[in-house]
């Protein structure tokens, strides 16, 4: 008997984008930022220091393969070739393994720079909710990091934790946020110290008769409480900006805003690319610096 393939509820959409109003051949400086994260990898191309194109893919087994997949997406979208790029900066978990990058820069600094571009110079506090870590970052008006904290000891409060819950409840990951508000009363959070405990607790609540939406709400609240504690350690100063894949989960974002009492700044950009965008912006500044045209790097 043939078994139907199991739906992967955690699987988020990969994709690419390019600015239809611009062409890279018109640019003086073409730079590439590559963010190889633990769950997703992004490639961003900037033309003269402005966002032009990006690609987001799921991270493969190796950092180089992941970076190549992300670059392939952006090259296919734009017609660019690697030889057309003037400077490449790698960032993220796999940044040290990218032989084609001119420089590796920490994801903390790149998220600071990327959020400064996306949210503007008034952004002071950034929360990056990544695939397997969570970062609270304070920046100045130029996006330079003044204070940071990263917690990657445990998957609770990260995208991977959200994927586990999506799979457990058999709810597509992009529906988790909206469904977390479709409840009669906000439940208490499940365990926020460990994803395995949270999963066990979610299963217990389902057996107690809780609806899936109520369990989702309890998990979103747990994530929000966990990351809010990290934010409070570095201090929250408006404007507040959220990057990373979990920023697309409105159920977590709204609960964080409620706990810390500050609204996250809206942005038209895909905040999942903030790290790679920051890397491409650093690449632009570093290229100009190498050519004898100093820029703030």
């Amino acid at each position, binding site marked *: 008997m043939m078994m139907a393939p199991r739906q992967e509820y955690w699987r988020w959409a990969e994709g690419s984008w390019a600015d239809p109003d611009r062409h890279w051949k018109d640019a003086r400086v073409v730079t590439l930022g590559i963010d190889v994260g633990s769950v997703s990898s992004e490639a961003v191309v900037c033309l003269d220091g402005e966002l032009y194109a990006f690609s987001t893919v799921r991270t493969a087994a190796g950092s180089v393969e992941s970076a190549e997949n992300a670059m392939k997406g952006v090259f296919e979208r734009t017609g660019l070739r690697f030889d057309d790029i003037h400077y490449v900066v790698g960032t993220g978990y796999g940044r040290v393994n990218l032989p084609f990058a001119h420089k590796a*820069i*920490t994801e*903390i*600094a790149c998220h600071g720079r990327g959020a400064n571009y996306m949210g503007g110079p008034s952004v002071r506090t950034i929360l990056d909710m990544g695939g397997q870590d969570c970062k609270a970052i*304070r920046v100045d008006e130029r996006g*330079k*990091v*003044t*204070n*940071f*904290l*990263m*917690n*990657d*000891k*445990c998957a609770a409060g990260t995208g991977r934790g959200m994927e586990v819950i999506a799979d457990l409840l058999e709810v597509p990951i992009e529906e988790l946020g909206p469904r977390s508000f479709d409840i009669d009363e906000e439940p208490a959070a499940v365990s926020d*110290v*460990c994803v395995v405990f949270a999963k066990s607790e979610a299963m217990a609540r389902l057996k107690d008769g809780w609806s899936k939406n109520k369990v989702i709400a309890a998990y979103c609240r747990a994530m929000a409480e966990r990351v809010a*504690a*990290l934010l409070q*350690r*570095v201090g929250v100063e408006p404007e507040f900006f959220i990057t990373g894949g979990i920023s697309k989960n409105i159920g977590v974002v709204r609960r964080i805003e409620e706990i810390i009492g500050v609204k996250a700044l809206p942005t038209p950009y895909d905040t999942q690319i903030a790290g790679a965008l920051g890397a491409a912006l*650093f690449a632009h500044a570093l290229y100009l610096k190498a050519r004898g045209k100093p820029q703030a*790097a």
Partner: protein
Amino acid sequence: MIAHYGYQDAEGEFFITIDTDRCGRCDGKPCVAACPRGVFTVEEDPYGDTVVAVDDRRRKRLRYECAGCKPAGDRPSLPCVRACPWGAMTHSW
């Protein structure tokens, strides 16, 4: 820049905090040699300053790496903190 290295888990918060603006003024970085567990490393930060950071391999085990310097009874000042001439380092636990 205030850099918090470490983690928060079910047992608590274990962070070593380094003020890199102060750390960058120090030429000798004596805290690196003072640590009996080799927790620290010297690196160039993204803004070009040479500063002390917690070694990536030890970041998630700080509670255990630092345990020898933190006896339960009378606790002497920590060798790393004592060695820092700029008062740039603190521990959260």
